[in-house]
């Protein structure tokens, strides 16, 4: 059978690739996609722990449901903000949107 560590390593790889994407990308939609990757890695970790170590209480799986809910709300709002930004500034590049930067 597949041991628990395999899932943990897979989710660690996904999470760090997401961190790299958030730090490196310039397009706001691509940054949002990297954030989605990180959220998915975390949910996978939760569900793996719930399924292997805690099958009677399954708090991890319930938490994954809430993570998916909040992520869906976040995607909807963030894309609305990005579309608004594009309409006002004609760009989705986060390096060019620096009005609030001192």
């Amino acid at each position, binding site marked *: *059978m597949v*041991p*628990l*560590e*395999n899932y*943990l*390593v*897979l989710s*660690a*790889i*996904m*999470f*760090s*690739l*997401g*961190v*790299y*994407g958030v*730090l*490196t*990308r*310039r*397009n706001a*939609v*691509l940054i*949002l996609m*990297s954030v*989605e*990757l990180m959220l*998915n*890695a975390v949910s*996978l970790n939760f*569900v793996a722990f719930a*399924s*292997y*170590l805690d*099958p009677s209480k*399954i708090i991890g*799986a*319930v938490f994954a*449901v*809430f993570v*998916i*809910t*909040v992520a*869906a*709300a*976040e*995607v*909807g*709002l963030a*894309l*609305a*903000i*990005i*579309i*608004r930004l*594009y309409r006002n500034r004609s760009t*989705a*590049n986060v390096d060019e949107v620096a009005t609030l930067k001192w």
Partner: protein
Amino acid sequence: MATEVLWWIFAIITVAATAGTVFSKSVIHSAIFLIGSLAGVGVMYVFLVVDFLALVQFLIYGGAVTVLILLALMVTRADPTGRPEDTDGPQKPFGVVVGGAIMAILIGVAVSTSWPNDVSDKAHGIPIDTISQKLFIDFGPPFVIASALLLVALIGAIILARHEEGE
């Protein structure tokens, strides 16, 4: 044995799709790779025998979220000719350092820790009725608050993205 071989195949596909999402030069290719990566996580839920979450993952992430992201990409494309734009900033070396450090730490901790109760080395699986009982009985108030959050996010997104008079 067959399960393990299949697991490794899908794990490699998932990691490859994730890397494609992050490293791809074209934004549309990135979004297509993202579908593969999210579907790969859904397949991992199937391997963990958590049917309900696998279903939710395929429906919400594989369907709704990726369609929304593709739509936003097409609406906000700076260059309609499809020329590959400069997607990565000058922070690339720092991103490599931070991402590599986090990956090393997480993998080291995950491998070196001896997890308790992990005697059978086997996913127990979580049936859908157990999840629903937990969700509706023990986590009732957070569930209601989550529905209110979704409603507020929906209304907020409509107000933000609406085309106003005189614009």
